[in-house]
């Protein structure tokens, strides 16, 4: 079975039958062959040419299939070339800051950037003597040192409690408008749980699309972008009539809506023609009752009601414009005069590829999508932003350091892992800690098979065996050597 499949697959990829036969003496799958070296293949009795050729074909075919998959994700348009440029969002370093940093270096002190920036702002333009400034810096560094967290502090538990405790004070009510009355977004506890769970798709995906500075105050431009990304089905912009007698489907486009969306009837025909089920059956005709209007007629090529039904369905559902997943796009004027598009549904990859979209600011609330498109560091920032926004919206203040720690832990090994048995907790090195969390029996049985060793490093396992944990005061030993009394010393 498997051999035959592989054989066929090889032939499909243009490998000659004779060559394939030889290959299969040793290899079982295409992937194996592809990963083998040319020398391996030659050893099987192939000529070097054949070997190189085969590898090239397999290697190439691999790439092809990769491309195909990518295409499947983005069927709308071939991927556009995006020009990348580095975006620096941090404020530029001011001269005052450079001066301050120089002084800090000179003094051998250290201050977080944020403090330096604030100091720079305050001191800018005030002719305070260098000595005074140094004094200020010294004082600040002294305070900073005092405010640092102590070693062996259980920073994790602190963070977990600080995020968990306000959970009880949050609302369960899921929906709340997000600056726009029309789009509902999950907020409160359910949203926080969603973030921590690292769900693939949030229950209410949403995007905030910013427009490039040149266009962002131009309503029409922005509206055009919005209608380009908003998913529009034929039903949204036209009435669809089924003519059973003549076996055809008549589409009456609503011209005002078309105009609004910037779609021409020709485009409708074009789009419908792209559908395999409708290809070659679509025609643009003038309305007989009203010559000024146009209608699209889809006629069935065979007299079957079932077929007609299929055509009606296909016509209705056909997407005329917009991106997958973007259910609705709404404009909003910001206080600074720019227009921002809020969307229900999310498709970051394709929205970023759109013209006139400000790629540096446009964002989505889907953490996984950000991870897929922009990478872990972006996902980490997204977790921080989403979590702190959710908490803030509920009027709860939680120090950002706690949220950062959770985000850093979730993204620690390069992808986004959930907090829970499928994520971090299930990956603990300690058997006992895992058993104490969830699915006790399975962990214990599995540990027995693999002969796992629990090194008792963590908290849970040390509590279980009844000895001090390795955090806080448990992490240190205090040795006190009493001073010898003078009497004893002299003896």
């Amino acid at each position: 079975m498997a051999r035959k499949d592989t054989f066929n697959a090889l032939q499909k990829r243009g490998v000659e039958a004779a060559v394939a036969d030889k290959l299969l003496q040793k290899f079982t799958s295409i992937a194996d062959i592809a990963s083998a070296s040319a020398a391996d293949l030659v050893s099987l009795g192939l000529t070097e040419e054949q070997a190189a050729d085969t590898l090239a074909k397999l290697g190439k075919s691999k790439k092809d299939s990769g491309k195909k998959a990518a295409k499947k994700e983005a069927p709308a348009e071939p991927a556009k070339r995006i020009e990348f440029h580095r975006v620096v969002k941090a404020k530029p370093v001011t001269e005052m800051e450079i001066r301050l940093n120089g002084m800090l270096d000179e003094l051998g002190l250290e201050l977080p950037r944020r403090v330096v920036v604030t100091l720079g702002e305050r001191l800018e333009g005030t002719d305070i003597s260098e000595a005074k400034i140094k004094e200020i810096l010294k004082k600040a560094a002294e305070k900073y040192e005092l405010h640092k967290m102590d070693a062996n502090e259980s920073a994790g538990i602190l963070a977990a409690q600080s995020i968990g405790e306000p959970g009880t004070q949050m609302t369960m009510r899921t929906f709340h408008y997000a600056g726009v009355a029309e789009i509902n977004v999950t907020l409160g506890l359910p949203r926080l749980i969603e973030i921590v769970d690292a769900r693939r798709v949030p229950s209410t995906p949403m995007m905030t699309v910013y427009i490039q500075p040149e266009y962002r105050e131009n309503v029409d431009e922005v509206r055009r972008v919005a209608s380009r990304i908003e998913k529009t089905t034929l039903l949204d912009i036209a009435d669809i009539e089924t003519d059973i007698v003549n076996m055809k489907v008549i589409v009456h486009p609503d011209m005002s809506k078309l105009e609004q969306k910037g779609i021409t009837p020709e485009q409708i025909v074009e789009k419908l023609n792209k559908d395999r089920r409708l290809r070659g059956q679509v025609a643009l005709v003038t309305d007989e009752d009203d010559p000024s209007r146009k209608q699209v007629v889809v006629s069935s090529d065979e007299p079957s009601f079932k077929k007609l039904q299929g055509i009606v369905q296909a016509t209705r559902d056909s997407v005329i414009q917009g991106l997958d997943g973007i259910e609705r796009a709404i404009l909003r004027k910001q206080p600074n005069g720019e227009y921002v598009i809020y969307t229900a549904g999310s498709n970051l990859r394709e929205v970023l590829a759109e013209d006139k979209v400000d790629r540096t600011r446009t964002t989505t609330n889907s953490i996984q999508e950000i991870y897929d498109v922009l990478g872990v560091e972006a996902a980490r920032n997204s977790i921080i932003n989403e979590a702190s926004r959710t908490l803030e919206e509920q009027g709860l203040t939680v120090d950002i350091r706690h949220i950062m720690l959770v985000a850093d832990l979730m993204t620690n090994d390069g992808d986004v892992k959930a907090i829970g048995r499928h994520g971090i907790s299930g990956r603990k090195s300690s058997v006992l800690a895992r058993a104490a969390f969830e699915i006790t029996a399975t962990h214990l049985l599995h540990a027995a098979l693999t002969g796992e060793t629990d090194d008792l490093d963590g908290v849970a396992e040390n509590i279980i065996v009844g000895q001090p944990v390795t955090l806080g005061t448990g992490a240190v030993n205090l040795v006190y050597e009493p001073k010898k009394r003078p009497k004893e010393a002299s003896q």
Partner: protein
Amino acid sequence: MMRGVSKRIGSIKFSSLSPDEIRKMSATKVITADTYDDDGFPIDMGLMDPHLGVIEPGLRCKTCGNKVDECPGHFGHIDLAMPVIHVGLVKEIKKLLQSTCKTCGHLLMTKEEALRKAQEWADMDDLGGDAIDYRLLAKGTAKDASKNTTCPYCGQEQGKITLDKPTTFREDGHKLTPKEVRERLERIPDEDLPPLGIDPNSCRPEWMVLTALAVPPVTVRPSITLESGDRSEDDLTHKLVDVLRINQRLRENRDAGAPQLIVEDLWELLQYHVTTYFDNQTSGIPPARHRSGRPLKTLVQRLKGKEGRFRSNLSGKRVNFSARTVISPDPSLSINEVGVPEEAARELTVPVHVTKANIEFLRAMVKGGSNPPNVDGRYVPGVNYVIRTDGRRMKVTDRNAESIAEGLEVGYIVERHLMDKDVVLFNRQPSLHRMSMMAHTVRVMPWKTFRFNLCVCPPYNADFDGDEMNLHVLQSDEARAEAMILMRVQEHILSPRFGGPVIGAIHDHITGTFLLTHQDPKFDKQETLSILSKVKYDTLPEPVVVDGREYWTGHQLFSTILPEDFHITFKASICRNCPSCKKEDCDLDAYVKIRKGKLLTGTIDEKAIGSFKGKILDKITRDYGADASREFLDDVTRLAIGAIMVRGFTTGIDDEDIPEEATRQINEVLSDAIRKVSEFVQAYREGILEQLPGRSLDETLEVEVMKVLGRARDEAGQIAGRHLGMENSAVIMARSGARGSMLNLSQMAGCIGQQAVRGERLSRGYWNRTLPHFKKGDLGAEAKGFVQNSYKSGLTPTEFFFHSMGGREGLVDTAVRTSRSGYMQRRLISALEDLKLKQDGTVRNTADIIVQLKYGEDGVDPSRSVQGDAVDVDDILSEVLGDDAEALARIEEKKLAGYATIEKDLMETMEEEEVEEPEYDTGGGGGED
């Protein structure tokens, strides 16, 4: 007595028991299903064999010769007549059968493939994979191997192995007996096991099919003797009896050469019993039940879940030296103290080592016995036990107190009653954060409740409507020292959650300081002394003389408790955010300015001293330390209580009285709104309602209606509010932040407003209507849950019903929320518990993997941060430039300019994002505790 921890367990290795090991460690073979004979003695080689350990006091173990508590118990074993499969391992067995050859036992992989897999394992070792990674790797290997249908070693065609849940294996549809399975597993060579994730040294695959069953010691499954004299056996014993019985019958039948069918049936029955003995919740088979119909709790059930061994007995344990009772407030206590009832204090003891220095003191105490009478109404601690150097514990009674006291020697330990200044831990569940368990010092008091200062309510989230709390007495000096340094209440004034105070004034304390300072009232000498009577102060401030009489102002009195060089400026809670701030000349007296420890202007309310918000509190703790802060809070408590008692304060239903004129206006507003709603409904019916973008017609109507009704409620509230001035007690509480809100007041005096379920107007109940009192399809205000009345005027029956619908949603919400957020927190803790800050400033887990290179990117402890900032820049500037007033002024100017723009921005955004949806009342505030 062991002191401190001298030994540490380095590591624990897990492995499986082989049948040989089971037999070797067995103290006895168990063959009879009977437990006790007619005389009540355990039968030899029965399940209660005395070799398995002792559970009855006085008897000795036949194996180790120890008495009850000393003998740990010993395992026995049952030899199974036929092998059976271990339920917990069926998946592994399936994996093994599928990925190895049925005849030669080799892994179904060519050498090259196997080598590549081995490389993957080696790579994983290098990269440091975790439990899941390795498991996936093993799974992948098994999957790849099982794809090969012929053995690369012997060329044998492989059958298709399927698993009939829970324990039956089939090969191409033919049943494989456990015996056959075992034979196949035996054939798998050791070297093929590691790629499948099995360590041959810890577990040979054939051990997964059991031939011998370990019988746990009786200490693990003690039987209970009921009052009637009947014995009640443990669930495990019951299950083992079943196993033994069937095992016996199976052996007899097999040996007697019974028909294959009967033997197989019995074999399957044995499999069932062994399966349920391990896990009685295996899917696919009915759980074994007790005679009463209750499912038995077998091995897996004992370990699993919240009530299981791990979470209930290993991760958390019951303790001695603890107490629990109802709590009540006591403003005369310091925030560090807890009032403990005498009765509890006499039960809770502290071990004290007798030394040369304290022997006389302790001797006197022992002499008093275990229940010394109070002297002059004052509590006298006694002693419950004295422990001699040989470890013997002597109970102190009135009769032997004298003689024990005489015999007291250095080196003895005296367990004396709790007394004032002892350190105890105090806790209220749910313990959501570290402030839920803090160290207090004891004050033994009469009556029967635990008492503490009200400022400590917020961290515990406690109130006094019947809440109970727990108290734990520390038993070692190490623990006491740690508790005093790390856990004392005063050390937790600033919360690590947001770097502000969690401990602070609430309710009457805020009202008290408000009354004391608002508009700077004057107090005569008598009042002044009464207010200050409980506060420590050196001299009275300079009095203000009016008409020859001496007065002290509220500001002066408040200033007595402030540190001398205290500086602060901020806006009080009562501030209404006027467009332009008049600062010191504020009409509302909301601009708080303190210079050199003197309150110059402003009102002290929630923003100043309240928990979560108190700015003065925050600054004092940060700048003057925990001790100063504790003193300040204690003084605030006393001062506030003094002030409120001098002025007197009460609130009642008449606080919500509004003039008839106002009622008329409110009614007008409401009927206007209702009329508007019916107009909208009318428009909707006629189809002329203008649709909102992105909304359906129905939604548009709802949005419009709710807007109108929301506005009406607000307007009614405003009208009511106009007639409730600052002299009104309820308003004082609401405005100062002591308790309640203006919304609460407007609901009491004006109108309750729209009731909502799931954020929508009420709609469910009957067909197309909420109640039979309305016409079907009525979309008007009254029919869909608008409550026109106020709490004070009283609700109509329909309104009352609607209001209770909203209220119910609130209750359900709370119930659901607590469990959901509880689980989230458990997961968070479990994921983050191992993280700690190392000496080098990195945050790592216990596997030493770096999670953050610098904690929080700046290494600052949130509880020491200044509202999240690393250092208070402005504070440092004013401190260093203190003598350079000019430079300071320039900075100040710039800072204010900066603020102004920020505030302006903020206000603009707020205007833009004006709340479009009206707020609804989801349920009254009811349901305390």
